[in-house]
């Protein structure tokens, strides 16, 4: 298929996944803050930190209040990672490949975009945040489901999966990192109900609470990190995402898994192998936050190699426009 088309489908899926995860992060924080005894304790700045856009936020807003953070993460067109910006770009990519994706899938992307542009969208996000961010998440799932049910499971579909899973892996590391930025009211609270509450909320934001319960039972920091990073079966764990991306990448090229024929396969293969043989004890000992940072770097590296291998090829001596 056309390189540009593959690239658009890849990014279309990444942006939808990113929008979904912003909604997850905001949604969980909203829920978490509701459980706090005192309004003055509300913490919204971790939401900004975890997206990596802190500087941009500070340039445009005075304080990390609930409404400022929701505005910034959801509607702000100047924030390239806001839900609205993601959808604008996702839709633009979808428009540019309408002849490849199914009409049904395009329609879902378009509906999602139009939902954010409804005149009362802002007001609904502020006054009924739960329902609003739930709708965002569901829209993303509808797109994913519609894609799986209406598109041929061929090359374009595989590029879409690669984009979706790489983005999701990255986003899961960020959700896990929220905890790093969240302040505990005091050091004594570690292991207390408030700590439990935070880990629980974090699991919920990854739709992982129930699955976690079945696997590990009690909520404990180490087990939560292990579940979201290393679990093989849970669809949002980093390990699962990297493995699924790998399956699709090799389906595109035909190279057997555990071998590589290009730099993209090599970078992703190394990441999967690392996750295969990582023990959570070592992660916690050397520091979860640093580990998550390193995974994010590696995912960026995989993205770069995918671009070089599939999207930006040149004819001998041709300079790319």
């Amino acid at each position, binding site marked *: 298929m056309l390189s*540009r088309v593959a690239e658009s489908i890849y990014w279309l899926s990444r942006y939808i996944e990113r929008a979904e995860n912003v909604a997850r992060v905001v949604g969980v924080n909203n829920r978490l803050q509701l459980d706090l005894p005192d309004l003055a304790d509300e913490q919204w700045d971790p939401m900004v930190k975890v997206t990596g856009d802190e500087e941009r936020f500070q340039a445009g807003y005075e304080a990390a209040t609930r409404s400022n953070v929701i505005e910034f993460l959801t509607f702000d067109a100047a924030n390239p990672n806001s839900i609205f910006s993601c959808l604008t770009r996702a839709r633009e990519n979808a428009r540019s490949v309408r002849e490849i994706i199914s009409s049904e899938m395009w329609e879902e992307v378009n509906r999602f975009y139009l939902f954010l542009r409804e005149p009362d969208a802002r007001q609904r996000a502020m006054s009924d945040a739960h329902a609003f961010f739930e709708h965002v998440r569901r829209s993303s799932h509808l797109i994913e489901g519609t894609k799986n049910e209406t598109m041929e499971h061929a090359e374009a579909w595989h590029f879409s999966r690669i984009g979706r899973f790489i983005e999701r892996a990255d986003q899961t590391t960020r959700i896990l990192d929220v905890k790093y930025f969240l302040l505990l009211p005091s050091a004594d609270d570690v292991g207390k109900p408030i700590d439990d509450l935070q880990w629980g909320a974090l699991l919920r934001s990854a739709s992982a609470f129930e699955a976690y319960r079945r696997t590990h039972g009690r909520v404990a920091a180490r087990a939560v990190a292990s579940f979201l990073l290393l679990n093989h079966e849970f669809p949002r764990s980093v390990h699962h995402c990297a493995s699924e991306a790998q399956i699709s990448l090799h389906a595109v090229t035909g190279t057997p898994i555990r071998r590589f024929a290009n730099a993209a396969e090599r970078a992703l293969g190394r990441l999967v192998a690392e996750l295969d043989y990582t023990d959570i004890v070592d992660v916690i000992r050397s520091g979860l936050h640093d580990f998550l940072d390193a995974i994010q770097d590696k995912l960026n590296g995989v993205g770069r190699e995918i671009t070089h291998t599939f*999207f930006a090829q040149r004819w001998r001596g041709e300079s790319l*426009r």
Partner: protein
Amino acid sequence: MTFENYDTGGFYDEMFLPDGAPRPEARRLVERIEGLPDGELVRRHQAAERSLLHTGITFTVYGDEAGTERIFPFDIVPRIVSRETWDPIERGLKQRVEALNLFIDDVYHDRKIVRDGIVPADIVESSEGYRTECIGLDPPRGVWCHITGTDLVRDADGTIYVLEDNLRCPSGVSYVLENRAVMTATFPLFEGLGVRPVIDYPSRLLSMLEDVAPRDVDRPRVAVLTPGVYNSAYFEHSFLARQMGVGLVEGRDLVVADGRLQMRTTRGFERVDVLYRRIDDDFLDPTCFRSDSLLGVPGVMDLYQRGRVTLVNAPGTGVADDKVVYAYVPRMIEYYLDQKPILPNVPTHLCWRDEDRRYVLDHLPELFVKPANASGGYGMLVGPTAARADLDDFRARIQAAPRNYIAQRKLDLSRVPTRVDHRFEGRHVDLRPYILYGRDIYVLPGGLTRVALRKGSLVVNSSQGGGSKDTWVLS
């Protein structure tokens, strides 16, 4: 809703006779619309509009807030064309396109029509679409204008005129197909009326494109070239590519290599033999035409000249898409085909002729003045409603560059009932049929009916408040 108080207003109405009775071909449709329960038509119309918005059938408005998309307004009352009306239109368009194609080929070869004194040489050479790079070229099957959209209008006395020929990249056919699809889904009123289908247009288009592939290619590969997602007709480009099952490419996807046009794919490079390009000649190849074009493909003209790729429509076709050249089409038909024109031109004053110009300048407030080389209703003077300053402005412009202007008398375009809130009012329409020319000439039954939605307006362009209607040619 009924047509009880519907007023034809002294215009030619496509649905009703002057005495208020429906035309015979419209009688059954009128009965069916009037038989709908109260409010049903409005409900169906709203459902149709929602469906258009959700499926993203939009166009981009230039000069508005960057990249504003709108749905192309759609009216639920279709326009009916009887077989008796359609037959001469179809024959007339085939005749016209055949003559236009012969003219273009002649212009770039022997110029017999110039030597025989029918069309002046300087009119040909000053036409904006004239390209010296095309002299002596022989496109496959001798076809230059593969796809033509010809605008037709009906005057008060019922005569159907050709208003202009769009031979460069005529757009709008996707609305014809989508309007029909929406009507089928939301308004299944036409069962049993014998409406001729339009759905086979994409497969006819694909066959035509394959038929004009370079002669040495066995299984031609076709692609549609678009300027990109910000182009006003982008929806149509992607729609046609999707319907034909061919690639939609941008200039940056293409490269000239190993003597062929190639597209960049995830598995390396693949050949393209026929390029249905939806960008103007000027932007096609920066090494040949405008060097600042980022939309085109460097070197593609050279390939084309060597017959290694077919470009549709052929470069240089625009020489006939000029409103001064238009005025000569009836004589072309007589000259090349030795036939009487079936469809008349609107009588046209050519400002480069002294006598015509004097008349135009003296009668400006009665006339429509159009630039010879613009489309979309841009840069036009509507004399009867123009302000004094505009009239003066055009007077000066005509005198400064008479070759660039033509004038026509005001036509009282025919009307079709159109839903306005909870009643019907007459609105003016035109009709753009689409003609394909490959192995032979095919006319899509009907075409795009554009409707001036503003009361009293005669301007049907989508950029100027126009909408569209489904067009039902009866068999």
